[in-house]
């Protein structure tokens, strides 16, 4: 991606540089050629509509190239490829907490394998931050109360700067870190340390149990809340007849603001976990619920429950 950004950058520099040069040269030529001592009487030229149209429409056409090229890049920058390696980022004043699926947890340093798409799901615990790795030419704001994502594909090993790009208070300039890009075998070796606490999803699973979520979100159809197996990534039918894709944002919202979107067939009985759970804990729950979607292949029993008396609330497509 960084090569593609640089290519557009060089294109922009060339075109705008040429036009700027043209204007400057014209001005200098006019100053020289029409200086008062050489050209004592001005000849009045009041305008030329064709010329003005030309220097409106030609720039417009060039601008549309800039737009199209930039937009194309932006779409790709905003669309993480499927099967990216997923890492969670929790920003707070003034540090980066980086959470790997396999359980490793880092502060201000992110280890990733080379030649692999890496997708970051990010949230802030306090103010707005922004995740910027200049070398990768990517940046995305990290917001409180909402997940944002960014992805990159490092194609060379090395250590790269990681900066907070959105002003976030006193030590904004101290909210810097590094991204360490490693060969795959080195990376695997690195992964083999530090995951003693179990994977992130397992952390979430333990939390899910200790919070008593399972009392209502049972793995059958008898719970007061929807069965969460196989829900992630699928459309969910809501009481108001609309439906929503059960993505990270929806799962998070259902935890911190459960009354916002009630699944069809259920009542708004779940308490809010706003302020009860840290963003880190919420993320671990999201990671866990995500694994339940995958596990539907392993546990076909819970996949298609018999038609219950009331709607399961899960619209399986």
């Amino acid at each position, binding site marked *: 991606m960084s090569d593609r950004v640089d290519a557009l950058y060089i294109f922009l520099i060339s075109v705008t540089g040429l036009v700027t040069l043209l204007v400057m040269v014209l001005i200098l030529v006019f100053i020289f050629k029409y200086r008062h001592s050489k050209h004592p009487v*001005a000849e009045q*030229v009041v305008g030329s509509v064709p010329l003005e149209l030309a220097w409106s429409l030609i720039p417009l056409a060039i601008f549309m190239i800039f737009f199209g090229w930039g937009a194309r890049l932006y779409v790709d920058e905003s669309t993480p490829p499927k099967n990216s390696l997923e890492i969670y980022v929790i920003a707070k004043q003034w540090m980066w907490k980086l959470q790997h699926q396999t359980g490793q947890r880092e502060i201000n340093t992110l280890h990733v394998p080379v030649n692999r798409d890496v997708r970051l799901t990010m949230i802030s615990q306090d103010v707005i931050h922004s995740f910027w790795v200049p070398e990768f030419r990517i940046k995305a704001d990290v917001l409180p109360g909402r997940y944002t994502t960014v992805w990159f594909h490092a194609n060379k090993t090395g250590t790269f700067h990681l900066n907070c790009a959105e002003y*976030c208070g006193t030590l904004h300039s101290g909210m810097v870190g590094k991204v360490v890009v490693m060969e795959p075998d080195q990376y695997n070796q690195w992964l083999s340390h530090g995951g003693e606490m179990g994977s992130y999803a397992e952390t979430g699973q333990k939390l899910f149990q200790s919070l008593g979520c399972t009392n209502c979100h049972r793995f059958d159809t008898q719970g007061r809340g929807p069965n969460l197996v196989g829900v992630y990534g699928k459309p969910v039918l809501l009481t108001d007849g609309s439906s929503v894709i059960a993505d990270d944002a929806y799962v998070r919202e259902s935890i911190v603001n459960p009354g916002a979107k009630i699944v069809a067939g259920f009542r708004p009985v779940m308490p809010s976990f706003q302020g009860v759970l840290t963003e880190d804990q919420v993320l671990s729950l999201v990671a866990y619920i995500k694994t339940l979607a995958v596990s539907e292949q392993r546990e076909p029993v819970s996949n298609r429950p018999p038609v219950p008396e009331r709607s399961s609330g899960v619209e399986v497509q």
Partner: protein
Amino acid sequence: MKMATQVETIPVAPERDYLNTEFGLGSWFLTTDHKRIALLYLISITFMFFVGAFFALIIRLELLTPKGDLVQPDTYNKMFTQHGLVMIFFFLIPSIPAVLGNFLIPLMIGAKDVAFPKLNLLSWYVYDVGAIMFIYTILTGGLDTGWTFYTPLSTSFVSSSVVVGALAIFVVGFSSILTSINFIVTVHRLRAPGMTWGRLPLFVWASYATSVIIVLGTPLIAISMALVALERIFGIGFFDPLLGGDPLLFQHLFWFYSHPAVYVMILPGMGVVSELVTCFSRKHVFGYWGMALAILGIAVFGFLVWAHHMFVAGISVYSAMVFSVLSYLVAVPSAIKVFNWTATMYKGSIYLLTPMLYALGFIGLFTIGGMTGLFLASLGIDVHVTDSYFVVAHFHYIMVGGMVTAFMGGLHFWWPKITGRMYPEGWGKIAAATMFIGFNLTFFPQFVLGYLGMNRRYWQYDPQFQVLNVLSTAGASILGIGYVLPLAYFLWSLRYGAKADDNPWNAAGLEWTVSSPPIKHNFHETPDVTTEAYNYEDLPCDIEIPREASVVGH
């Protein structure tokens, strides 16, 4: 002191001009003369400019070394916040409109004063109340939210004087609104007979369009500031996700005003430059209607591009695309203006006097600022360079390279009219060149810094960036000299400058048909306008400026 000279040299009782028709502090503080109010504004904003410049000085000194060693991080954060707020709200926005606009609009359209002279005086007082509130903010804890006041940092986290600071911005906004209402009504109602819309000088068009932007946009910043203050005091939760609010809502509100405000900070400059380029090329402006429509186009489209400040803030891909396209559309009228100024010089008879040097500096710097704006409008590039020094360089090229340069050019050009004295031409050229060199040395390296990955608003930075930062600080020192020079020789010229003729530049425009300085009511008789603006074919092609040597020692 002025009176003394006149009495000595001219035995016949001179005609009273607006400066010597009344005396005493009361005649200034209670004046309703648009020209005196312009001077009051000039003094106020010059003071605030040097306050803002002091903050810039601390910033540049801190950035001389990568380590944060000169001031504490909180102090540094206050420096850039206060630098931005003072320069934008207390200098740039009122600069050309409140000083040159106030002085010139009635003169240019053949009116005795603005439509509401008392309102005009009130707006200066409102400005001063805002400025005093802001200085109070600075002295009682300062402000460290960034000039953008992004929530929830400003509402729930920083501990500085956010409420008073936000209210100061709230108050000063009303000063702009009052001035703008005045200008709009003045241009509509008080044009002299024959001064049709098609004969208005482009400076009047630009001031008119600016006023419309201010009237439509400023209430938004007032609301945003009020919401920040309310949220901070009462914890209401408009912008706090914990209370169901949305921090992006603030950004939309803020930029809905603050992007059009960027055009408030450039359109008047474009107006000034159109006057200067025509005069010193001795030519009709190239494409009058193209220029006037471009001004209006910028004013209208300027309202539709605000979210280009938010491409990485978490808005949808589709809305980002819409705002990117619209941002390119607003660039077209700017391009027209640059090409038309250049074409105005074609076959002219060009004088490189100080105001023209500033005008040419403006065109060069504005072109670079505009071109780099095209980079930022391009989504894929913006993702990388937004919030970096690339952006800092870009908007300084527009606001300082553009607006301040135009303001300085305009001040030199109309100084003889305002004061009746010539500034020293030699020093004027030296200052213009100093500013141009200092400016480029300060801000050009910042484009490079930004692309290489240096963040804006960083108190300490990676050592790899030091060389470029040292260059930038060196440039800022030169730039500082460039700003102090005119202050010195303008003051000098009040006493020692050569007496100015009524029309020292042989310039077109009604303001040059009256005495220098003008009488209190501008015109003895309401003029009857029979020609288009920039009728340089009717004027001598020569400019002979009075030599300062002839009067020194009077």
